[in-house]
């Protein structure tokens, strides 16, 4: 229990820091994140530029702050798409008859076969790369994830006595699902949301790294890592900071998820 509490606090703090940084970047960054200053290119970390500057003389700290905004918004939309479509589908599969269940689950098998990267490759070929591409590709992959989790949890909850009782007194399937089943599994879904959020941040960075995600001049962590790679010989730190930011963000969300799980479901690990 103590460990769970620590996870919750630490995870919550890191996540809050991240969100705070992203929000702050909307109104203030040390320098404008896209401001180019060629005279001061590739500067080492200093009082003027805490994390140094990139090959165009842009301030790395400012770019990381703006990158947090980009990363979080991609993850937010991707998870919203996945949960918004996946949860109702999963509930439908659990409550509907066998055919509905089969149809939803086979479709979800199909969607599950396309990792975000493959979808993003296709969308990028079709509509060009970009932030929206990443949101959509990761979002589509999240749909079957949420559908499966919801269906599984709903099926197990539905067999509990009080829900069988509710059905026995004549409540409709929809009412049972909305009033009794979903509230019962909402804790579990919340945990899943934090997990998918963390995965979405990694996926977003990966897509941006290979050039399928957020595009310049909008700063993004994955993009910064890609740009840094050709400079590893004389500005190795450029390849360190954005990766640290991603790791920290994912770590925070994972800790938060673990903490939530322990708190909401004491039987867990």
């Amino acid at each position: 229990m103590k460990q769970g509490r620590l996870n919750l606090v630490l995870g919550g703090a890191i996540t809050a820091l991240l969100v705070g940084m992203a929000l702050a970047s909307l109104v203030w960054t040390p320098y404008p994140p896209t401001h180019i200053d060629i005279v001061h290119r590739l500067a080492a970390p200093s009082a003027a530029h805490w994390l140094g500057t990139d090959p165009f003389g842009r301030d790395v700290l400012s770019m990381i702050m703006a990158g947090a905004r980009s990363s979080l918004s991609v993850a937010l939309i991707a998870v919203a798409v996945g949960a918004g479509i996946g949860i109702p589908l999963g509930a439908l599969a659990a409550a509907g008859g066998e055919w509905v269940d089969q149809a939803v689950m086979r479709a979800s098998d199909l969607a599950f076969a396309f990792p975000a990267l493959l979808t993003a490759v296709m969308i990028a070929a079709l509509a060009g790369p970009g932030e929206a591409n990443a949101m959509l590709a990761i979002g589509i992959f999240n749909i079957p994830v949420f559908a499966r989790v919801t269906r599984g949890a709903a099926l197990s909850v539905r067999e509990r006595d009080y829900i069988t009782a509710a059905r026995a007194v004549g409540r409709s399937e929809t009412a049972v699902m909305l009033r009794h089943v979903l509230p019962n599994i909402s804790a579990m879904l919340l945990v899943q949301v934090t997990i998918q959020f963390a995965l979405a941040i990694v996926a977003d960075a990966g897509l941006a790294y290979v050039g399928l995600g957020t595009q310049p001049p909008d700063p993004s962590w994955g993009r910064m890592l890609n740009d840094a790679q050709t400079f590893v010989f004389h500005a190795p730190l450029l390849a360190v900071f954005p990766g640290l930011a991603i790791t920290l963000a994912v770590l925070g969300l994972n800790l938060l998820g673990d903490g939530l799980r322990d708190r909401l479901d004491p039987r867990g690990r």
Partner: protein
Amino acid sequence: MTRFLLRRVIGLVLTLLAASLVVFLVLDILPGDPASLMLGTAARPDTLAALRHQMGFDQSAGLRYALWVAGLAHGDFGISYTYGVPVAGLIGARVMVSLPLALMAITLSTLIAIPVGAITAARRGQAVDAGLMGLAQLGVAVPNFWLGLLFILFFSVQLAWLPAGGFAGWDKGAIAALRSLLLPALALALPQAAILARVTRSAVLETLDQDYVRTALAKGVTGAGVLWRHALPNAFIPVVTVLGLQFGFLLAGTVIIENVFSLPGLGRLIFQAVAQRDLIVVQDLVVLLAGSVIVVNFLVDLAYFWLDPRLSRDAAR
């Protein structure tokens, strides 16, 4: 039992067909065609038309889909638009890089994860457990491509021990080839191992609580013996499940890692084919990769069935 299997196999084939249709539909409406790319800026309408005809691009979409799927069904992947050679050969050569890389990553991650999971479970609550699980928590959070970049920074740029990328080629000998795969495989394996170690630990903990393990302990079997002979084999199901579920991530990770280390694998091929509008190669690759995820999930389902007798009773019902 056979009815269940049959149903699953039919489902598998239908899913694969649906995947191929999705891929074809998406890619068929792409802007830009390979003929215009090959002829570049000085192309003229007459040379374009001539080349399109040469490449069979003046046939209808339906016909092209039918021909493609019929070909796939008996192993003919078609002819690459850009290279003009069979796609099967192109993919075959790249598989010789990607598959060893993925296998190396899976092997390394399992070799690291299972002992770590078992040890931490056995020493639950002790310093070893806390330390290793803290490390695993961190490991799960590290993106594999960044880890790859850090490896390049450290092992190639600073120490100059291992190549910063590129593939020596199998004809230079297995040692040289494996050397160029070592860093990318490690970068893929470590975050994977962190996830697996956590799963192994909790699965082992769960079985350690079960009656038969308690009985064995009561009978005087040593702790280590119980761990290796009883708890670990039973922790197998969740580990296999997670390996299966992670397969898609491993695939995506391989594609990205190949870009980090500039390895001539399937991942490089797919980006190159998209850039060159070599649609047939893109189609084949996406279907191949998505298909492998579908097949692996199918195999995991079957493995369940085998490992857990309760499930086969359910299915027989």
